[in-house]
């Protein structure tokens, strides 16, 4: 079985800071990581490989340094890594991104037929959850989003059964290979990198594809040109007209502060007080 896992290198968002005066992002020193949601996809792919054999190819589109993220995936046990990188991809929105990744997967498929494509449910920097469905549509693959469990794969019959997180419940879906799965978080735990795989990752060549190597001839479909959406402005949120009313008490004793707050809160919001008092204890 040949599985392609699409990943993205993202800045560790917990460490992003905004300059307080200029409102610009301070990128210096923010470490780049593999999008955490993608690791659930990679682990699931590796488990399928453990069970059914085959190989796992990791794929990303990004700047040259995204190679580090691919190498990380190799240490976990991916067999092959491909970086699609070209200045022509700059400024891509989700529609243009899915075009480029779909083209690359078609290219991979020509080499060795692809049975399954995995992505994380979304990235932590864009948070859109749109690229997975976009790739599936472009490749005419069955789409299974928010999958919490791959129950069964029958390679001979080319059938697959999964559990999918739906609104208010879980759908058990059966579909046909090839298909694209976006994996829900918390569904598995990433294995440790083995010593063997770490050595292999260090030696293994990441394949670098520019636009042409990725099989893309139409430049109007990629990058800024291929993106229907444009960012018209970036801004910091407005402070409310009034800042918080600060609760103070003499000596700042916690008990006095608490009483002052409750007094103000309940005097001005009597309905809230009634609701709290009336709740069953």
């Amino acid at each position, binding site marked *: 079985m040949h599985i392609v896992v699409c990943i993205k290198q993202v800045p560790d968002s917990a460490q992003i800071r905004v300059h307080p005066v200029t409102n610009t992002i301070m990128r210096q020193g923010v470490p780049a990581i593999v999008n955490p949601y993608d690791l659930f996809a990679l682990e699931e792919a590796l488990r399928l490989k453990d069970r059914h054999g085959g190989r796992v190819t990791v794929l990303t589109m990004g700047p040259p340094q995204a190679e580090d993220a691919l190498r990380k995936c190799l240490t976990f046990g991916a067999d092959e890594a491909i970086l699609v990188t070209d200045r022509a991809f700059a400024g891509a929105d989700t529609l243009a991104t899915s075009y480029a990744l779909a083209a690359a997967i078609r290219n991979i498929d020509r080499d060795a037929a692809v049975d399954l494509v995995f992505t994380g449910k979304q990235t932590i920097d864009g948070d859109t959850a749109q690229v997975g469905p976009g790739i599936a549509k472009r490749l005419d693959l069955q789409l299974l989003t928010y999958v919490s469990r791959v129950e069964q794969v029958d390679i001979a019959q080319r059938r697959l059964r999964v559990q999918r997180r739906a609104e208010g419940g879980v759908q058990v879906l059966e579909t046909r290979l090839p298909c694209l799965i976006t994996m829900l978080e918390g569904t598995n735990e990433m294995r440790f990198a083995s010593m063997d795989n770490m050595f292999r990752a260090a030696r293994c060549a990441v394949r670098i594809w520019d636009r042409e190597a990725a099989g893309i001839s139409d430049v109007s479909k990629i990058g800024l040109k291929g993106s229907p959406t444009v960012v*018209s402005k970036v801004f910091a949120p407005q402070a409310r007209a009034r800042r918080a009313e600060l609760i103070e008490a003499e000596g700042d004793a916690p008990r006095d502060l608490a009483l002052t707050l409750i007094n103000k809160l309940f005097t001005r919001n009597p309905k809230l007080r009634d609701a709290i008092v009336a709740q069953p204890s």
Partner: protein
Amino acid sequence: MSEPGTPARKGKGKYELDERLQSYKGVWVFVEHERGAVHPVSWELIGEGRKLADQLGVPLSGVVLGAPGLPTRRFCEEAFFHGADHCYLIEDAVLANYRNEPFTRGLTSLVETFKPEILLLGATTQGRDLAGSVATTLKTGLTADCTGLAIDPENRGLAASRPTFGGSLLCTILTLNYRPQMATVRPRVMAMPDRDASRRGTITEHPLGMIETDIVTKVLEYIPDNRQDTPQLPFADIIVAGGRGLKKPENFQLVWDLAMVLGAEVGASRPVVQAGWVEADRQVGQSGKTVRPKLYIAAGISGAVQHRVGMEGADVIVAINNDAGAPIFDFATYGIVGNAMTLLPALTEAFRQHIAMARVAS
């Protein structure tokens, strides 16, 4: 020069909408339902769509896809009660359960036939699954998880705002020379509009043109969640939330203690969920839940945009933080600058006494 009455204007290097796109008119909201009930986010979007449609001077339509036997006509009626003028309805047996393929086909076919300029969907597992597929089929722009929608006065386009850079800033996104302009909005981000049962509207029916054997993916089973087990943050009246300022996972118990006394749900900021102190279902913010409680108590949460967009719809926000410069004090109602580890137990005790006294008195 643009024609009178056309959406685009030239000048200042502005774009002019392609002639073929000028026929796209009207605002649509996808009405999402599961197990015979409409998801409330659809009515929230009908409320927001109403404002956009009024500003543009165009009709507002709901889109309902479902199988015969489901109360789809009642859903249309409810859409009218919440503010829609019109509904598009596709009824077909293959639409009995949500599945990507037939729903994508149905919604795409409606858009291609009736050409709306704006299409809004809830950012739920169903809405996001569908929106990405429909936008890619139509080759148009889609903006995810918007926290604000407005009409750009320059070009009458949809100006969709959302957090960016991991939720540290906001950005506004336009879809210029493509139609429809698509956006998803998370539940509870927009206010629920008033329901007026005297409102009426019209329905246009449309065929799907698919049969079951066309559809590859089958729904074998649907296992409903046990509601008691899952936190219901989006609709909670009172939420006590904790963040990194609590320093240690053990200290998060102080949040639970206060929540217990108030009959509140427990929420958390992203860092402590990522650190594994609390289950992911309790995360409040752009990558978690959006909430609109009557009272939100934030302990040890700095109030980054990421968190703020998920909770600033609360009626009253109480912030406890030892950093007087924390952004949360810019938008909280009440602030206490101090140590959450000592203030939380003090609040728990003071609320407990107050409630006990009030009960004795009544």
